[in-house]
């Protein structure tokens, strides 16, 4: 201590002398240099201590963590549930294996060890991945099974690591394939709801948000089972069905063939095709419902208006004929119930192109439908909307629409005349001003006409005892490009049933369609809608009623349109 004080005194004395005689005394010069050196050293030590203190006390902990690997950011996706909260799609935690090529010591040994693991890429592929030794991150294997993860970890290979990952799984496999869609390995949506809500579905690790769909798991299963059975029974190429509430909420939507979104490798283009929304077809006689509603609502005809359907209509080299025609004048009611092409063409001729286009526009049939999936087909409209187009459109040819679009239009007519927008997501915040497309009176008449079809017409096989079902069948020949519709021996048909229940206050609408069904002994060789798709619709309706019947069982009231029908 004394030494220190004496040294300090010496410095003090020296400093005083140095100030007085800075450049004269050589001893002072040396002292001056040494003093400066000591001061600099002490300052450096103090600066070091200060820096350390600041870094420990002020700089937050997380800023001091230096990332070791450039890991890929894997984000969690929200669950998708049905209207009852049943889980349809979820993300589960998995582990994925990656390599840090810069940290691998012996590449050959690493490859040799890794190739022994089941499911690992081939030696060539691993070698290719590890080629660039400047890289810090390269995926080796995604979603590794825990036992394999343990095997690799036990090997303790330098530069081989695991990171937490998420895998999207679809619990019910094929059941919702076309609606929910699927994702790629990084959970990015590639089709269906997954693609439409791709960004919205990304959530934080702590979030428990869910996307609630309007679908019902139980009803979807019923519809799919019965449609599948119908396709098998009638040897059809495929089929589709939609069950919708009359407010636009889709309860079930099935398109067959379908695919398993959990196994994308086995997915074919045909299976990917969503017939309900992406497919646009000439819909055939179900368009007669729209035609009749236009005639009734525009006031051009009444239910009792008579149209001569005794002879085919000749238009150029074509002629409009009836399938099993009555060969007599028919009322508008009969034209719908007995599905007369000739009478319907004449009904359309009476109200004209302008009125037809106006109503088609109101019903949203001239533009692409809006739905929460990207696979939406654009309707194919006539290039020149001529008188002939107007007549053929009346019975479902010359315009190609998606089944969902037609169902939406017919639902808008039968639900009291309020235009609906189909939707797959329950959103109570949506409050749009109701738009009337037809009057409630027209709506009621159209429902009664459709009930007449089920009681006396082509949809008799779709009738269910315990409930007043109304509906309409349609058989359309499929157009084969420039070859037209083929001849009698090679014609392919698209058979459709569209209907709903209950009659007085419709709550549910159903559309079922079969692609190229074949006639057999049970159908006496017929392959028209009334023989194949109507029984399928009946099976679906019979099973649905037990789930959703709410006191709306049949009352078998007398129809006001019956007096316009000559049933003999």
């Amino acid at each position, binding site marked *: 201590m004394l030494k220190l004080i004496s040294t300090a005194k010496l410095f003090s004395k020296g400093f005083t002398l140095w100030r007085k005689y800075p450049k004269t005394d050589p001893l002072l010069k040396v002292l001056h240099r040494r003093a400066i050196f000591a001061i600099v050293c002490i300052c450096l030590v103090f600066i070091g201590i200060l820096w350390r203190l600041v870094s420990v006390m002020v700089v937050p902990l997380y800023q001091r963590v230096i990332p070791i690997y450039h890991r890929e950011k894997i984000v969690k996706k929200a*669950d998708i549930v049905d209207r009852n909260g*049943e*889980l349809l799609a*979820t993300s589960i935690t998995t582990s994925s294996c990656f390599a840090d090529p810069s940290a691998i010591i012996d590449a050959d040994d690493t490859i040799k060890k890794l190739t022994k693991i089941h499911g690992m890429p081939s030696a060539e592929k691993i070698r290719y991945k590890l080629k660039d030794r400047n890289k810090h991150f390269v995926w080796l294997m995604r979603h590794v099974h825990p036992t394999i993860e343990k095997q690799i970890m036990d090997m303790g290979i330098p530069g081989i690591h695991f990171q937490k990952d998420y895998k999207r799984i679809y*619990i019910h496999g094929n059941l919702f394939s076309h609606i929910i869609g699927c994702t790629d390995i990084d959970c990015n949506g590639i089709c269906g709801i997954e693609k439409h809500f791709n960004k919205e579905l990304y959530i934080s690790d702590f979030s428990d948000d869910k996307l609630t769909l309007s679908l019902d798991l139980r009803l979807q299963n019923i519809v799919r089972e019965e449609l599948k059975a119908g396709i098998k029974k009638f040897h059809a190429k495929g089929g589709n069905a939609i069950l919708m509430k009359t407010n636009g909420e889709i309860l079930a939507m099935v398109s067959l063939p379908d695919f398993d979104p959990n196994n994308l490798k086995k997915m074919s283009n045909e299976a990917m095709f969503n017939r309900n929304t992406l497919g646009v077809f000439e819909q055939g006689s179900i368009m007669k419902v729209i035609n009749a509603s236009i005639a009734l609502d525009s006031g051009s005809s009444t239910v009792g208006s008579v149209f001569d359907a005794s002879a085919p209509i000749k238009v150029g080299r074509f002629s409009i004929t009836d399938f099993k025609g009555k060969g007599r004048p028919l009322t508008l009611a009969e034209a719908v119930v007995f599905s007369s092409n000739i009478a319907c063409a004449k009904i359309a001729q009476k109200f004209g192109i302008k009125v037809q286009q106006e109503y088609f526009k109101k019903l949203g049939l001239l533009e692409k439908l809006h739905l929460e999936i990207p696979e939406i087909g654009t309707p194919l409209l006539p290039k020149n909307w001529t008188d002939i187009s107007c007549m053929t459109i009346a019975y479902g040819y010359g315009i190609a629409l998606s089944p969902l679009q037609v169902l939406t239009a017919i639902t808008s007519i039968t639900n009291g005349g309020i235009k609906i927008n189909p939707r797959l997501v329950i959103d109570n915040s949506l409050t749009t001003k109701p738009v009337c497309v037809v009057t409630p009176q027209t709506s009621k008449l159209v429902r009664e006409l459709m009930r007449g079809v089920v009681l006396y017409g082509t949809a008799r096989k779709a009738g269910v005892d315990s*409930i007043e079902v109304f509906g309409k069948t349609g058989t359309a020949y499929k157009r084969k490009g420039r070859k037209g519709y083929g001849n009698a021996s090679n014609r392919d048909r698209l058979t459709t049933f569209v209907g709903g229940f209950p009659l007085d206050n419709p709550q549910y609408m159903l559309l079922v369609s079969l692609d190229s069904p074949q006639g057999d002994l049970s159908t006496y060789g017929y392959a028209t809608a009334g023989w194949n798709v109507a029984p399928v619709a009946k099976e679906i309706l019979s*099973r649905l009623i037990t789930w959703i019947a709410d006191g709306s*069982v049949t009352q078998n009231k007398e129809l006001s349109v019956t007096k316009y029908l000559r049933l003999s």
Partner: protein
Amino acid sequence: MRQLSVIALCVLIVLGICVSRIKYEVVFLRKNLNKINNEIIRVTDDLRVFGAEWSYLNDPKRLAELASKYLPQLQPIVHKQILRYDDFVQHKYANRTDAKRQAFDKLLDSLM
């Protein structure tokens, strides 16, 4: 002046110690928070897996297979079993014997 310097130095030392203590407490709390957060994530992920398993077990196809295997005497309700109340009273109920009617009335009363 010297006294003021000494006091200032003391205050500085005390404040330094306080800041240091708070800093370490925050570090400790942050560690705990991270631990709890990781636990929440783990539990949430586990719940998701359980939810998926539960949903898989409740798959309608699987339930139908199990029902046909273990409950062969029970069949799903068919649409013919649904009747309007008036129809029931007029046709089915009217044909029943007195004893059965009484039993049914009793059942209805208990349900009302």
